[in-house]
């Protein structure tokens, strides 16, 4: 019987100190640990360096709330919903500093972090302006006489925040095979601590029926929290689609600090529980629509 990792969202997020480097699973409109991100904001965390492959609405909310002052990743976009306006404003005004990496360079930095190596190389980015401005990237020669490579310095996030389909109370994490893109391949392995929210907690025996779906063993996980619809308003394939109306609602207010503040009150600060949050986003009937992937507007 391994160590118990089940806890509350509040306690889990209290593990994240101000100024921490927090890696967030995300991809434009997919699979973000949104309940965890809202709790981070609610707890008033500041000075975070947020790491994401492609960040969407979680980045925008943290930017609007003043939680983060650095972003490290490959892109920030909500795809068809457009740019993240609060993030964009904060970058343009110098409040958020961006370390922009190509995908292979981010993978190399995290891969080195996971494998206890000082760096890993890539051949991406060569010829771009992104190398010279980044102290964590440097061209080195090949000791075997081949082409030069870009050495990418190891990145070890303090915390990885991820959302998964199921786990047992010991933190063994499973994902459905259809959720393949968001960055769970290397991010949680690189981080010093892993906090996972999951759609459901199940008995360990359930996991033993499909051990190939467990992608992180419990001993690498520090906290696991049951949060149904924990990725809303992003999609969580195959369970539910992204919430188009909710994204639009945010975008409509994101440019306006006053409007954003009211919106944040309503959806982030006021709801004490995930149930209350889900009620405010439309309750059961809305969630049923999302489960049917009614997303083409």
């Amino acid at each position, binding site marked *: 019987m391994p160590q118990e990792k089940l806890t509350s969202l509040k306690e889990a997020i209290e593990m994240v100190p101000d100024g921490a480097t927090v890696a967030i699973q995300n*991809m*434009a*409109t*997919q699979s973000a640990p949104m309940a965890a991100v809202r709790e981070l904001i609610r707890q008033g965390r500041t000075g975070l360096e947020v790491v994401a*492959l*492609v960040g969407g609405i979680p980045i925008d909310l943290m930017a609007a709330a003043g939680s983060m002052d650095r972003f490290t*990743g*490959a*892109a*920030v*976009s909500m*795809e*068809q919903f457009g*740019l993240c306006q609060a*993030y*964009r404003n904060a*970058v*343009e*005004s*110098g409040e958020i*500093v*961006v370390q*922009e*990496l*190509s*995908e*292979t*360079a981010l*993978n190399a930095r995290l*891969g080195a972090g996971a494998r206890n190596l000082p760096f890993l190389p*890539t*051949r*991406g*980015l*060569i*010829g*771009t*302006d*992104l190398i010279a*401005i980044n102290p964590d990237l440097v061209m080195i020669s090949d000791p075997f006489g081949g*082409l*030069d490579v870009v050495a990418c310095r190891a990145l070890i996030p303090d915390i990885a925040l991820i959302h998964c389909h199921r786990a047992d109370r010991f933190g063994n994490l499973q994902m459905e*095979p*259809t959720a*393949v*893109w*968001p*960055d769970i*391949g*290397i991010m949680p392995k690189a981080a010093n601590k892993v906090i996972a929210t999951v759609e459901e907690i199940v008995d360990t025996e359930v996991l033993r029926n499909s051990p190939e779906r467990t992608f992180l063993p419990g001993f690498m996980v520090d906290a696991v929290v049951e949060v149904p619809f924990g990725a809303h308003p992003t*999609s969580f*394939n*195959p369970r539910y*689609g*992204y919430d*188009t109306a909710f994204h639009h609602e945010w975008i409509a207010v994101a440019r306006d600090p006053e409007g954003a503040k009211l919106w944040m009150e309503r959806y982030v600060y006021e709801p004490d529980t995930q149930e209350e949050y889900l009620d405010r986003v439309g309750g059961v009937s809305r969630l049923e629509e999302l489960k049917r*992937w009614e*997303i*083409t*507007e």
Partner: protein
Amino acid sequence: MNDELSIDWTVDELMITSLSATLDNDDQACNGMASFIPVIAFQLARLTHAPDLVWVASAVGVDARPERVPASTLEAPLWRDSVMYLEQYSTFWDIVLKGSWLQKFCVGAAQLDRYGNGNNSVIGDDYHRPKVRLPGTAGLGDMGSIGKRLFFWNPNHNPRSFVEKVDFVSCAGWLGGGDEREQLGLTGGPELVITNLCVMDFHPETKHMRLKSVHPGVTVEEVQEATGFELLIEGSSAPETVVPTVEQVGLIRDVIDPDGMRLREFGR
């Protein structure tokens, strides 16, 4: 095969068929976010001249069969019925980097200069205090450097997109032109640019962007006016872009994209 030319084609369809024509039967193709034109071009190619083309939907689903084009080109409905799922870290990039596969990429850039260098990072002089923060380089910063053949598309040809010099190089094109790319050991590079006005390629020696064909109804002067640098124009005019066939238009409208998602690229 119905080779009859369409008489009611629209510019979105023309861009799709122009892109489709660049794809060969033994290609593999993949798409990123907000990529309706490429996604439809891949499917069209598979249904017409390139039946063996392997499409990796959203860089996830190998040989996917979506019911129709959905509102996002990066979400699960697009990779329905796949034969394989690629995982970003351990599979997708390993395959891309190997070099033998996925040799052509369709890419968009907020700014493109005369040598095909792309910018999706920032508008403005100061990278750290930009006038506009763009989404970021994502996979483009890799694709430009690892030997891929780049096919740019842009549904809104204008002088702010086609600029003398990009504010920031976040995708390596032909750099300063000539053999500059070669000197860095970079293979591949920008090959074609398809816009709502014309098709452009690059001069084999100077790597200067060159007018290849203008779309019917568009003049060479209009293209030059919409371009922020002096376009290379060989001869006194340019050939007309080949218009879609009746069959192609039918497949796009009725089979692949009945909801008209492609029009979103044109702000509609």
